[in-house]
């Protein structure tokens, strides 16, 4: 029997091979499938439709899916493994966008639209039929700027101190142009017009795509006068798109907090909820928004790339061969490896799990030091975490936890008072919330925490239907707080570097 199986995805028309018995959760995420409940079979966010081949129906799926849905080939991909060749249709985006725009005054539009999430690390683009709000095609790619610096400050440094602005602008525009060309090839039929292109991203991504000077963001007070949205034409960008649509980068909120977070606020309805709520994007540039009904505050924290597996000794992105989850089994570590292959590294969710387990096993002390002065801990040979990795994680989690605490303080709120804490971004989707709580990254009750998927992209899609003025007004309503200027910043940050005992 062949050890690999072939998976073909519709509507994107992508085919790839994976090791037999690979959990679908491990391989579908890069294609836009999200696992809002964390892959526990408790929601229908990750459902896919089997066109060819078979996926077993587990008890979780019997509970979540109607007989009609199951007969129609619908499965929860988080509960399935690829045991044979498969043709799958990914359609959950459609469900999500329809469900999440219900409170919007959105009218179906003629033509097609494109939504792009311009992330510091990854780019995601989708082609939509605006009449049905159907996703016709999805493309993801790494942000090609990453080789000039992993985090936004090093991009700013490259642009300003090393005169690399033109280079950074050029590589990201070209990459997005390529992705759009691929989207059109996969999902565009002759005669259809593209009527709108919406992009979201943080302030640095905004400035680099729109070719605005980053100089004001390179030093104190780290504030730009170009917070507003920017509309470019195909001619400005040297792009040729049928229908010659406007290319709109949505407005920034303030400081480094950009339209990806603004889109997240819209996608999670934070601005419409009268109860106190939070949105946390656990990325390289960790952003936090707290809404209290009448007002909203936001901030960004320099969490660094530890959650993405960067600057970690054996760190890697969440891809085949990465340890993505760790639990305690018989007093030792039991590791889950993506793609059903031998482990070759560890990704962010695995790192958080590993440290949480090691704290429980007292192999790591609350101060972060490894027991007995060990320099590393072996998780599953040959993969280890080093003492320095733990320090990197302490810096990252300290930055986020301190940011949340300081912002809550500005709102006179306790963490317990938040009705919901929406986690945005890929990492927020994959992370085991129990582990995030164990290491003190998220200091909330389990019932407060809601992984919300790629809220930036969802919000960008909503923007394809919404009045642009809604976004512009909302951006002005959210107040940006510069955390490092608060008197308690250092003490809070340092305290939050420690792990709970």
């Amino acid at each position, binding site marked *: 029997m062949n050890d690999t199986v072939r998976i073909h995805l519709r509507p994107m028309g992508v085919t790839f091979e994976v090791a037999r018995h690979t959990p679908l959760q491990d391989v579908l995420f890069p294609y836009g499938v999200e696992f809002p409940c964390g892959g526990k079979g408790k929601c229908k966010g990750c459902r896919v439709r089997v066109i060819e081949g078979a996926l077993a129906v587990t008890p979780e799926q019997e509970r979540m899916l109607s007989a009609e849905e199951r007969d129609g080939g619908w499965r929860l991909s988080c509960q399935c493994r690829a045991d044979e060749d498969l043709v799958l249709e990914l359609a959950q985006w459609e469900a999500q966008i329809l469900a999440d725009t219900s409170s919007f005054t959105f009218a179906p539009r003629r033509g097609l639209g494109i939504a792009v999430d311009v992330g510091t690390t990854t780019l995601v683009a989708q082609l939509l039929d605006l009449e049905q709000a159907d996703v016709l095609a999805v493309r993801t790619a790494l942000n090609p700027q990453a080789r000039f610096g992993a985090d936004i*400050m*090093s991009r*700013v*440094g*490259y642009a*300003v*101190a*090393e005169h690399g602005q033109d280079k950074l602008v050029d590589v990201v525009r070209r990459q997005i142009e390529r992705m759009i060309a691929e989207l059109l090839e996969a999902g565009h039929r002759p005669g259809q017009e593209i009527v709108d292109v919406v992009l979201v991203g943080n302030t640095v991504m905004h400035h680099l795509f729109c070719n605005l000077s980053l100089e004001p963001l*390179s*030093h*104190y007070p*780290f504030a730009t006068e170009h917070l507003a949205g920017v509309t470019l034409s195909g001619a400005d960008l040297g792009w040729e798109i049928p229908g010659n649509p406007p290319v709109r980068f949505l407005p920034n909120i303030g400081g480094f907090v950009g339209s990806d977070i603004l889109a997240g606020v819209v996608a999670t309805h934070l601005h419409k909820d009268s109860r106190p709520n939070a949105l946390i994007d656990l990325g390289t540039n960790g952003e936090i928004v707290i809404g209290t009904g009448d007002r909203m505050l936001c901030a960004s924290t320099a969490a660094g790339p530890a959650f993405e597996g960067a600057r970690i000794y054996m760190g890697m992105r969440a891809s085949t061969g990465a340890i993505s989850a760790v639990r305690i089994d018989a007093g030792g570590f039991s590791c889950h490896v993506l793609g059903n292959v031998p482990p070759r590294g560890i990704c962010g969710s695995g790192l958080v799990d590993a440290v949480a387990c090691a704290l429980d096993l007292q192999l790591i002390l609350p*101060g*972060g*030091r490894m027991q007995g*002065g060990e*320099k590393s801990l072996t998780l599953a040979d040959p993969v280890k975490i080093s*003492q*320095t990795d733990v*320090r990197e994680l*302490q*810096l990252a989690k300290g930055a986020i936890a301190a940011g949340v605490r300081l912002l809550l303080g500005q709102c006179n709120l306790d963490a317990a008072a938040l009705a919901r804490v929406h986690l945005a971004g890929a990492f927020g989707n994959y992370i085991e919330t129990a582990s995030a709580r164990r290491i003190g990254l998220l200091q909330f009750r389990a019932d407060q925490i809601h992984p919300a998927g790629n809220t930036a992209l969802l919000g960008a899609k909503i923007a394809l239907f919404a009045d642009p003025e809604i976004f512009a007004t909302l951006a002005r309503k959210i107040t940006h707080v510069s955390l*490092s*200027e608060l008197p308690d910043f*250092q003490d809070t*940050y*340092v*305290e939050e*570097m*420690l792990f709970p005992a």
Partner: protein
Amino acid sequence: MEDLKKLYDAILTGNFKIARETTQQALAAGIDPQALVQQQMIPAMDEVGRRYEANEYFVPELLISARAMKASLELIRPLLAAKGAEPAGRVVIGTVKGDLHDIGKNLVAAMLEGAGFEVIDLGVDVSPEKFIAALNERHATLVAMSALLTTTMNSMKTTVEAIKAAGVRQKVKIMIGGAPVTQKYADEIGADGYSNNANAAVALARKLVAA
């Protein structure tokens, strides 16, 4: 001395209450404040620095040790001043113009204080003019500058140039540090030294004031 070892331990473990109490008791018992500094405080902070460099201590441990050291030093400092005791050196320290990052700078300031230096901390976003004014007013012999961003690092160069232009370059040694800073950069801008961590900064400062 058994009781004084308690001060050493309190600083090492970051217990500022015990550090303060032990210092009060020692001073009440007539112990020479200079001896407290030389025999307990400086060796304790040296050990803290060694552990930090060996990755045994991290930023939080270093800062809580520094807090304990400061609790003790606050009681001792007026007595030293009254006796006319000279510090190991006078340092003007700050994060340069345009930059707000101060944790690294605070670590260095604490370590220098623990090593017996008088530290004049100008805070963050410090302009060249402020550095020069402090140098002149406080008769400092050492300037320590920090920057965390490649984009703000250039302020170190402008500050060195401003110190030259003000005609006080000969009176002071200049040391720099921070994530993007290198020995090569220190040489380029004409600084006297570079250190890549708080512990090594103490050794560098000692070397520069002795030169």
